[in-house]
């Protein structure tokens, strides 16, 4: 590709963006809104994961076994449930040692005690929010005498948050689809406005890709522009929020490292590019042949 060609292509794209004026602005605004909304949800879930994830993910269930229980059978019953990730058998002696260690008692005195603790299984679930349900299931298994787990607030909260995340993802998808349509329509208008030019290009021997490229570039420019605008909004808004949280809720820590912020900015631009390009690919595939 010669320098002249590159200049020609960029100029073609830029000219049509300028000529489209208001419609171009609408496309950019639309993508920007999508990116900001999506960005907010990403930030929200990143922070929630950060706050709750560590505790909730540690959530396990301890299942006490009857003295005459068939350990293998109980273990098999637990593993048969697909919510269960793994189980670990602990003898009553190990449990006693744990208890002593937790309480800070002298381990030497352990042997003078008739161990009152049962053998147990430590059950880990795939999803932390399944802990209560699995616990309930476990209490029904033959040979199980007791079930303990942290009825943690975090576990319940996590369930709630997951719902919110799904809603956010769905909303972002719907908005993204709308933005896609707007971009495609904008570029369709460009194609229509330039149909004479396109016809001439085809007549004098421009390849299909050469004809198509300015329109793809137009979409990419919309996307890149929107990505940058939304990155600025998101970063500025988040920085402000971080400051406020520091002042009013000093015990709360936001995810706010240079890496996270760079990721947010780049992610926003990348998502914008993808949306812009996808819209223009759609438009050129549909309408370029009709010219």
């Amino acid at each position, binding site marked *: 590709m*010669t320098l*002249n060609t590159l200049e020609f292509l960029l100029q073609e794209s830029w000219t049509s963006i300028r000529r489209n004026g208001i419609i171009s602005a609408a496309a950019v605004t639309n993508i920007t809104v999508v990116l900001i909304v999506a960005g907010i949800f990403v930030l929200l879930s990143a922070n929630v994961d950060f706050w709750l994830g560590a505790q909730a993910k540690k959530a396990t269930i301890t299942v006490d076994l009857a003295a005459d229980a068939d350990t293998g059978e109980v273990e098999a019953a637990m593993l048969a449930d697909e919510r269960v990730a793994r189980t670990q058998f602990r003898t009553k002696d190990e449990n006693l040692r744990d208890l002593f260690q937790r309480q800070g008692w002298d381990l030497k005195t352990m042997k003078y005690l008739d161990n009152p603790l049962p053998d147990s299984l430590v059950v880990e679930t795939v999803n932390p929010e399944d802990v209560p349900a699995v616990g309930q299931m476990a209490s029904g298994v033959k040979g199980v005498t007791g079930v303990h787990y942290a009825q943690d607030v975090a576990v319940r909260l996590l369930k709630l948050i997951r719902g919110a995340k799904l809603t956010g993802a769905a909303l972002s998808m719907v908005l993204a689809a709308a933005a896609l349509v707007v971009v495609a329509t904008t570029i369709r208008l460009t194609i229509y406005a330039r149909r004479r030019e396109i016809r001439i290009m085809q*007549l*004098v021997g421009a390849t299909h890709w050469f004809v198509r490229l300015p329109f793809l570039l137009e979409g990419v420019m919309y996307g890149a522009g929107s990505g940058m605008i939304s990155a600025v909004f998101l970063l500025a808004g988040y920085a402000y929020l971080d400051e406020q949280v520091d002042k009013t809720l000093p015990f709360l820590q936001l995810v706010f490292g240079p890496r996270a912020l760079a990721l947010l900015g780049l992610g926003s631009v990348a998502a914008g590019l993808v949306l812009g390009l996808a819209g223009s690919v759609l438009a050129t595939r549909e309408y370029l042949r009709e010219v």
Partner: protein
Amino acid sequence: MVYLEDVTVVYPNGTRAVTEVSLHIERGEFVFIVGPSGSGKSTLLQLIYREIPPTAGRVIVASQDVTALLGSRVPYLRRIVGVVFQDFRLLPERTVWENVGFALDVVGASRREKFRRVPVALELVGLAEKAQVYPNELSAGEQQRVSIARALVNAPQVLLADEPTGNLDPEISWEIVQILADIADRGTTVIVATHDREIVNRLRRRVVSITSGRIVRDDRSGGGYDDA
């Protein structure tokens, strides 16, 4: 340079535009294709620049069988086949120079090449001094000359003209035809579809007469429009 062998074109709606046409045109030849409106003149040209494929028969242009040319190869055919239309098809927001240069831009030519070739093409059609003018500031004849320059700037082997004088008055038409004849004399094969009797009768070059999609006369000796 251009060979049509038993070419038939039937449009999807069933219209038979061209029926079993065979035509051989040599390098550097100048040929008029004449006939009433709807006789199939334009279709014949469209076959050559591969706007449409033949329903049956074969089309060969510059030793290339374009009968079943892949869509992705069509642009490369268009670079050796220039086309001129009745309505000029110029871009109004570009100057004469830019309109001609446009044909080089879209085939990926370098800036240097553009600056070398555009003036030559404009010189050839006698518009060198109007390079910076916009099409709407030109007369119809001048606009047609710009479109000829644009078709020529890629140095095509074949130049097709579909009713190039349809919008021009007789004197200007004659000028345009002389330019086209001149181009043929320089070695480019020129095929002109027209129903302009006057230019055909005056130039006395090969005339292919077509009626209802069939060639009814091929006068290689340089006939007139209506010679039987």
